[in-house]
């Protein structure tokens, strides 16, 4: 691994340590919700990273279909996997926070439902990658990546309308009221740190995928030479 990537990873870890310190020690305890509010420092940045990953996935899928570049496909695979991981974190931390604050684990609110559908779509993407045969994996998954990404805004708007028609009584406990400066401070540090973690994970996974591709190409080469002999 190149020194610059090692430096980047070390920097990211340091940043993550600092932001964790900010979130757990420096940031004041929230007045009404208490310590459970601190999950917010992980929940929202994870959602942001998941969104970023899925956007990268969309771009990489489009580039792959256009240029048939295997590296773009490796990027799509890496971003989808990392995105699903962060999306899972969002879906787990959300209910943990909602249970004491809203009094329920889950509600079919627009954002929650959209996140769940997003997660379902990209899990199906990963399943497709797993089961598509041989050389068709890349095209098929790139196509699904584009479909999935286009679907998300439609899901969001249709569900938002659906739920504003039938408002649920537990809503209104969200973070709509603006953030106090010290909380915002800790939150921004975590946002930055998580963004870096997301980028590092995607980069590592991307290189792994590229190596896998090289290994596969080498195997194919070997098999061809074996036939020739």
């Amino acid at each position, binding site marked *: 691994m190149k020194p610059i990537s090692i430096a980047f990873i070390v920097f990211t870890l340091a940043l993550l340590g600092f932001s964790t310190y900010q979130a757990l020690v420096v940031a004041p305890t929230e007045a009404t919700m208490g310590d459970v509010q601190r999950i917010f420092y992980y929940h929202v940045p994870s959602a942001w990273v998941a969104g970023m990953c899925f956007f990268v996935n969309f771009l990489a899928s489009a580039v792959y279909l256009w240029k048939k570049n295997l590296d773009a496909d490796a990027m799509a695979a890496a971003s989808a996997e990392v995105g699903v991981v962060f999306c899972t974190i969002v879906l787990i931390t959300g209910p943990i926070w909602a249970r004491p604050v809203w009094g329920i684990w889950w509600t079919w609110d627009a954002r929650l439902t959209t996140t769940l559908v997003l997660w379902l779509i990209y899990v199906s993407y990963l399943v497709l990658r797993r089961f*598509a045969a041989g050389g*068709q994996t890349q095209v098929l998954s*790139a196509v699904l990546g584009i479909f999935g990404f286009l679907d998300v805004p439609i899901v969001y708007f249709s569900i938002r309308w659906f739920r504003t028609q039938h408002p649920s009584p537990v809503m209104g406990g969200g973070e709509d009221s603006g953030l106090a400066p010290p909380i915002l401070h800790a939150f921004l540090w975590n946002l930055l740190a998580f963004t870096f973690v997301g980028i590092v994970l995607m980069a590592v996974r991307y290189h792994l995928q590229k190596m896998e591709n090289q290994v596969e190409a080498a195997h194919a080469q070997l098999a061809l030479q074996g036939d020739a002999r």
Partner: protein
Amino acid sequence: MEWRSKDAINSMLFFSLLVVVIFSFAFNPTAEESRLIAGGLIWVAFLFAAVVALNQTWARELRNQVLDAYRVSPAPPHALFIAKALGNFLFVVILEVVMAPLFVVFYQLRSVGPVWQLVVVALLGTWALVVNGTFFAAMSIRTRNREIMLPLILFPISIPALLAMVDATTMILTGDGTPSFWLKTLLVYDVIFTAVSLLLFESVLNAE
């Protein structure tokens, strides 16, 4: 061409009949309740039946390497896709026409809202299911676990369309509000995904 074997249509019909009967045992609804839940039941039944049929659209072509013939033929891939989608659309519409009276009988349905709106919802919704289904069936046919792959990728993507269909149907049946927003959503969904399918079908067909 589909008429040669009536496998698909027969199994679809029987399948959705079974769904109707099983749901009615499972929920045992009164006329009032059934008006509220019928929107969901009808579309779930049609969705499952459509998946049964869609799985077979391309499988038949695969058997004699017809798909490879399409690939080398000079005919534009869009034409093939549109033809397949229209064929499936016709199929599912026939299914709905046959099954709708059964729903009415078994669930004592009587629509409060105007019935012609139901027809519009059915046509738009069926196209949404079929256009995506035909496209994803062409994709899932290339995977190792063909039959199970189609619902796995079709259902998550179709969630907004399903929501729109079910809610519009329920609104019309109960006469509770106008479904114009859902009709617009369905229309937008149809237009977007028909366009994307047409755009990307060539790369799916030629994926190797």
